């Protein structure tokens, strides 16, 4: 029994980590007033970028950096679209998801000459994986500190509530949004890189499997706070782990039906919590 519990806990931590990173990205973006539906695509970009860099340099650390960079780059695209062009953020985010998933699939064919999945690359290994699990908790604490204990964090939160107030204080709300959304992409890219070169050692099409969207549910379930999002991501990670563990223990359970478990959990969480929580007042409203 203890071994089962241990397996469940370790698996939960591993499955939750990419969701934690993406959810932290979601928190910072939404706190600045930009809904980031593109998290899913930014994760894919991070996962793909990490594999490409690791493939060509054989340095998984550079892969990790590239994953973060790719996520940030895509985040920057959404940031520019959401600030300078005042786009509809949901629509733009879905566009970004299509671009990233399609771009990675296109890149697989061009660079590896094989559709579906990349070749295996140097990964961060077990130590790297568990380090990143720990770093996720550190990042949560760091983001909490930045958001609630620094002037910049206060301004980001103020931008998400009332950008006009920020403007009348003589500051440019768009600058806070730009940086917040770019950072959001960097977090999502890190989450994606965790999937591709820490948990695994390759990129395959569809490997993000909606984790960016689950992260958005975690943001809401976590009431737009870093620690709340961490807790919610752990819950969703638990369901992902449960699905694996149950499958291993009870082989008669249909695997496909079990795969729906994390998404149903996110749906139920969303149904249970909303209405009783309040989003930042200007979340999703262009300034």
């Amino acid at each position, binding site marked *: 029994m203890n071994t089962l519990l241990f397996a469940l806990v370790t698996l939960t931590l591993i499955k939750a980590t990419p969701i934690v990173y993406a959810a932290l990205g979601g928190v910072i973006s939404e706190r600045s007033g930009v809904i980031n*539906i593109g998290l899913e695509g930014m994760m894919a970009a991070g996962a793909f970028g990490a594999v490409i860099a690791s493939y060509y340099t054989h340095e998984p650390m550079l892969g990790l950096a590239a994953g973060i960079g790719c996520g940030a780059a895509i985040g920057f695209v959404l940031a520019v679209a959401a600030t300078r062009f005042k786009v509809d953020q949901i629509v733009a985010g879905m*566009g970004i998801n299509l671009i990233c998933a399609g771009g990675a699939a296109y890149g697989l064919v061009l660079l590896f000459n094989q559709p579906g999945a990349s070749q295996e690359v140097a990964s961060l290994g077990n130590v790297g994986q568990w380090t990143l699990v720990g770093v996720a908790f550190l990042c949560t604490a760091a983001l909490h500190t930045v958001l609630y204990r620094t002037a910049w964090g206060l301004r980001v939160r103020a931008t998400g509530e009332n950008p006009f107030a920020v403007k009348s204080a003589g500051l440019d709300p768009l600058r806070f949004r730009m940086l917040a959304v770019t950072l959001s992409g960097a977090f999502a890219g890190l989450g994606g890189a965790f999937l591709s070169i820490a948990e695994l050692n390759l990129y395959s099409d569809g490997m993000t499997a909606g984790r960016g969207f*689950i992260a958005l549910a975690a943001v809401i379930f976590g009431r737009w706070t870093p620690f709340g999002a961490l807790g919610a991501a752990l819950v969703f990670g638990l369901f992902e782990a449960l699905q694996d563990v149950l499958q291993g223990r009870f082989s008669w359970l*249909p695997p*496909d039906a079990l*795969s729906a478990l994390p998404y149903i959990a996110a749906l139920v969480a969303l149904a249970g919590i909303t*209405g009783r929580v309040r989003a930042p007042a200007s979340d999703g409203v262009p300034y």
Partner: protein
Amino acid sequence: MKRARSLLSGPAGAILLVVALMSVAMMLAGTSPIDGFAALILGSLGGRSQIGETLVATSALLFPSLGVALAFRAGLFNIGAEGQLLVGGMLAGAAGAVMTLPPFPAITIMLLLGAVGGGFWGAIAGWMKARLHANEVISTLMLNFVAQYITLYLVNGPLKSPNAQGAETAWLPTNYWLPTLIPHTRLSIGILIAIAIALGLQFLFRRTVPGYALRAAGEAPEAARRNGINLPRLTWMALAASGAIAGMGGATIVTGELHRFNTELSPGYGFIAIAVALVGDLDPIKVCFASFFFGILEAGGLAMQASAQVPKDAIHVIEGLIILVLAARRYVSQRSERVVEAAAAS
């Protein structure tokens, strides 16, 4: 300058963007744009069977695009058309495999079951939004995955045909197939149903009270609420109707082209539908033309991949870029969320 800009952010800009980016994608793949576009055009419009395939894709895109456009008009994001297509197609395929009715009622029932399945799937998100204030963007996205895995489970388990190699329902008897529209192609009369729905939606929006209420809710929710429009009810009904149209699309793919159900029913039509609806300006008639344009890209993209070695996924990148560019226009009142909540609270 302003006029040029508004033109470029519209459909004309979208087409220019496609041509420019396709050229880049082709050159990256080591193909000259001339060869690439020749392959794309010949592969989509170069003969009877090619045009047939283009129209098959047009039809498959038109249903979910009309559904997405309907929801958008009501100020709602239905990003769950993919799941609604699957659920609708699954119900149609399951019913068709066991029914013993004469062809006409059987096909009608399959199409209606498709609408019921997709409508139910959309209504879940609608109910969650109207009653529980759950953001429909995330709920419809989650429902896509739930639909994908549940239908996968069903075709691997209870609905799996004993004769089938892969995960799919039994083939429909040939008299349960939707009649072919153009001989010697795979195109069924499903596309006519889609066009009829488009005309019906146009009438709904322009000439009826519910259509007016729906547009009012999308364009000025606060004004709509103050004028007595029941926003929560409109919300779930709009999402249900949106899902029903997409679900019927799934059913027409099953009875019209695939003749069985499997989860490979849609290569992302429900997501591409967002691009189609935006390029079509959320106008049902324009959406028909936009679907044809994207049908060319889908069918031609396959041909381009085969004969010019340009990966078809480039098409999806371009579709995403079109969405990103068109997102600069306002479709949905940004405040609708809170107004619906206020309406439910009052």
